[in-house]
């Protein structure tokens, strides 16, 4: 698309760089209604950051009513490690009075409040912020013309932000045309009209609040991609060789299955929308049995429905990848909030002794790589592998180095080669390797795959000794995997006061918290577990180097005062030094919550957010 003539030439911003203050990274919170398209422009900002070799992380809320409603989208972008979407905003854009009122206290003192003066009357007494009123609604209507009403406000704001932060207008134009390219010319034109109007806001009206990002560190060579956790995971599955799967919709898992359904065809694969989660697990296991690397998944309630099928997969030793995009529980719970409360179920949810593998990705990039790892383990150990991601990761946008697909991509096809006379599906001394249908067996004796306890050929047995041996076989292969895992790296102090142990999406906030804690003189280390079952080796030695081990997780403290991972670690190591920092408010950890939690446990006073926060704007 050719950009409309009104658009300023790329790079030539109306103010020169020296009139602008340099910033390293910035947290911008857009607060409006979900109908206003704030996710769209938030997404543009994130994508832009990615294309500019910046780091970026986003955070959004989903309105609780079906027809939409109040919603926020927060973007943190800039240089250096961006590990969380930020506790407090540097810039707040308030579309409505309710947006202003609900979010003004998340703006840090000294931050910039931009409000739509057509809708918002800020408290004139409140001098904590620099307030900039712009008639966003009126100006948009004026710029775009009456028929579209105030549609386009979001692009007006994007233009405004581009002006304030001297963003790359050409790149944004590219993003807009990519996004609306399929639609009518009108739509693209209107979008650009609104954008340009925002961009044209006179500097005077901005009270001198103009900034320029510092140049990013030299890029890693590979281009950055910008995406959310569910998409990263989905493409990770495809890279891992998944061509078949089945699921049933549920928030926030749904976008994984939607993407697989629309993408797998290109790879010759099939994704089935089943009648329920039990059927979905059945389809996936049928695909797996037939020789493919297959996936099924869901969120909490759907996982509860898959417990019987997963038990069968353990007994039958069937490779399978199972995704749980965790949300607030129990039961229907808080479907659009985040929680890490399905860990115990992932490990122990099926009846009987049914050992299986559980992994969790730490950020959006890791969603991609953890899928590859799950595929590797499922195939190598002929076992179901559960991936526990969560609602926060699912919808969060981050930028990361494009993976080297040529090196990483796996394409396991069904192995139909004839099997020799020594073939047994369940040898006692080797890991199970199934012969899919289509593979002939030299003996002419075909194997059974069974959920009953069975002998080496898969035939049912009630023999006590065999049940003991087969139980051991299923256990020992998982132990062998555990022994082969890398020892987790300790970040921060290698020994000292506190070791913070986390898993899943809390990685970023914990890492930032560790930085802040060390800055105030605490000796703190961090390990983050990706392998939750089996656990990696040598944790005991690492734990021994710290006075306290504090497990930080988003779930309940339980009857005995310990979160779910803490419970597992205590059971394995029986170290009284292992304690818990948990919460169940359905929100991601704020850095200050972790910092204060640690300081409190060290007998020091918590800070009130007033600690070592690097100044930005």
């Amino acid at each position: 698309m050719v950009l409309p003539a009104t658009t300023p030439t790329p790079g030539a911003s109306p103010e020169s760089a020296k009139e602008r203050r340099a910033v390293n990274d910035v947290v911008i919170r857009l607060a409006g209604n979900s109908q206003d398209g704030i996710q769209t422009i938030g997404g543009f900002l994130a994508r832009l950051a990615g294309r500019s070799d910046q780091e970026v992380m986003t955070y959004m809320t989903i309105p609780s009513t079906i027809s939409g409603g109040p919603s926020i989208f927060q973007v943190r972008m800039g240089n250096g490690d961006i590990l969380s979407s930020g506790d407090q905003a540097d810039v707040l854009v308030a579309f409505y009075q309710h947006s202003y009122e609900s979010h003004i206290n998340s703006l840090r003192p000294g931050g910039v409040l931009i409000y739509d003066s057509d809708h918002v009357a800020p408290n004139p007494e409140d001098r904590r912020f620099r307030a900039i009123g712009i008639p966003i609604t009126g100006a948009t209507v004026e710029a775009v013309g009456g028929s579209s009403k105030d549609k386009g406000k979001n692009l007006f704001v994007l233009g405004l932000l581009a002006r304030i932060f001297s963003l790359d207008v050409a790149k944004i134009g590219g993003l807009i045309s990519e996004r609306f390219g399929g639609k009518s010319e009108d739509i693209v034109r209107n979008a650009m009209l609104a954008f340009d109007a925002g961009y044209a806001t006179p500097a005077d009206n901005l009270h001198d609040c103009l900034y320029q990002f510092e140049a990013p560190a030299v890029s890693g060579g590979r281009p950055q991609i910008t995406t959310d956790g569910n998409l990263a995971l989905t493409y990770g599955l495809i890279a891992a060789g998944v061509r078949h799967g089945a699921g049933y919709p549920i928030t926030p898992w749904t976008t994984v299955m939607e993407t697989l359904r629309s993408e797998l065809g290109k790879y010759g694969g099939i994704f089935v929308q089943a009648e329920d989660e039990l059927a979905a697990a059945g389809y996936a296991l049928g695909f797996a049995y037939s020789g493919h690397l297959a996936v099924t998944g869901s969120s909490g309630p759907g996982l509860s429905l898959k417990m019987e099928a997963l038990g069968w997969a353990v007994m039958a030793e069937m490779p399978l990848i199972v995704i749980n995009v965790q949300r607030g529980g129990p039961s229907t719970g808080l479907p659009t909030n985040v929680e890490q409360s399905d860990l115990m179920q992932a490990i122990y949810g099926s009846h009987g002794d049914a050992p299986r593998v559980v992994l969790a990705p730490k950020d959006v990039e890791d969603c991609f790589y953890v899928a590859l790892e799950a595929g590797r383990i499922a195939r190598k150990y002929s076992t179901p592998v559960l991936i526990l991601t969560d609602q926060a990761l699912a919808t969060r946008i981050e930028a990361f180095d494009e993976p080297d697909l040529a090196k990483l991509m796996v394409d396991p096809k069904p192995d139909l080669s004839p099997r020799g006379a020594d073939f047994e599906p369940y040898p006692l001394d080797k890991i199970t390797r199934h012969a899919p249908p289509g593979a002939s067996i030299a003996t002419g004796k075909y194997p059974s795959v069974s959920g009953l306890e069975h002998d080496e050929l898969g035939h049912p047995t009630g023999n006590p000794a065999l049940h003991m041996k087969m139980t051991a076989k299923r256990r020992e292969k998982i132990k062998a995997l555990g022994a082969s895992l890398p020892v987790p790296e300790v970040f921060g102090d290698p020994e000292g006061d506190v070791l913070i142990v986390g898993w899943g999406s809390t990685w970023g906030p914990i890492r930032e918290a560790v930085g802040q804690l060390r800055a105030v003189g605490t000796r703190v280390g961090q390990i983050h577990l990706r392998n939750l079952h089996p656990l990696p080796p040598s944790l005991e030695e690492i734990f021994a180097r710290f006075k306290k081990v504090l497990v930080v997780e988003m779930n309940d403290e339980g009857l005995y005062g310990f979160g779910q991972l803490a419970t597992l670690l205590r059971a394995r190591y029986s170290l009284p030094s292992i304690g818990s920092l948990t919460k169940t408010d359905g929100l991601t950890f704020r850095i200050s919550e972790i910092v204060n939690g640690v300081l409190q446990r060290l007998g020091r006073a918590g800070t009130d957010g007033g600690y070592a926060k690097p100044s930005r704007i």
Partner: protein
Amino acid sequence: MSSSSAALATAGTAPRVPLTKKALTADHPTWCPGCGDFAVLASYYRVLEKLQYPHENIVTLAGIGCSSRFPYFVNTHGVHYIHGRSLPFAAGVSLGRDDVHVFVFGGDGDGFSIGGNHLVHTGRKNVNLTYVIMDNFVYGLTKKQTSPTSPIGFKSKTDPTGSIDQPINPMQTLVNSGATFVARSHAGQVNHMTEMMERAARHEGFSVVEILSECVEFYEGAFDAAVPRKGGQFRTIELRKNDGTPEDALRHDPSDEVAAFRLASEPWPGVFGVFYESNRPTKNKLEAGLIAKAREKTKSASDLEVLQATFRRMR
């Protein structure tokens, strides 16, 4: 299940020896002596002998129940899955591998009680496989509880004074499910049963045969009304020949869903034969069509190229 799916060429180059009953026989069945299921197994051997599929391309699947022990008694690739869920599993195998022949066996409890919904949805999707329901009007493996086909008044351990819940009508349920081949037979009528199973196997799409198979242990004599030598009647369905004769109008048109539903409402013991048959496209074909369309769009790029292009769009 269709015989038309092309068998993938497998490794061996030696000419195939014909598939015999002997090669197909596995463990001795653990069924009670006299159980109707033995006859069903014998028919299955006969059908496989007729069809002469490559041995390694046959899959025998089941859920849980006496009847569902089937896979252990047939020497083919076999799966013993969980109670009531064999159909989604089998559908996964069928969709995953168009070169294999998928046969599912199970009981009335497995198929109509816990598994009832999967029947309907596998049916409407018309997944290419053959499903044989060995209906004995009772839960055999768990030793005599009421099943969804037990007639009112049947005295079981869960209805000691006689069952009170109206049973389902298996044929009406199957006709309504969307299955594209629906037939009914009796384990005592070996030739008829074999014919029905063979027709089902040769049908492309989701084919189901309900076979009345007596549980001699817990419901002896359940099907005597359909056994001529016990004074019963085994009435078979005459299918329309489209020969233009006036008699022909009275014969059953198996493509007529409503007629099939009406036929299924005949009083016990009803009629036997093909109730319904149509050739709606299978999900296997429809999914293959989606793949072909998608590949056309990507110009059959390699998997790596497709994924790389996707990542480029995320830059």
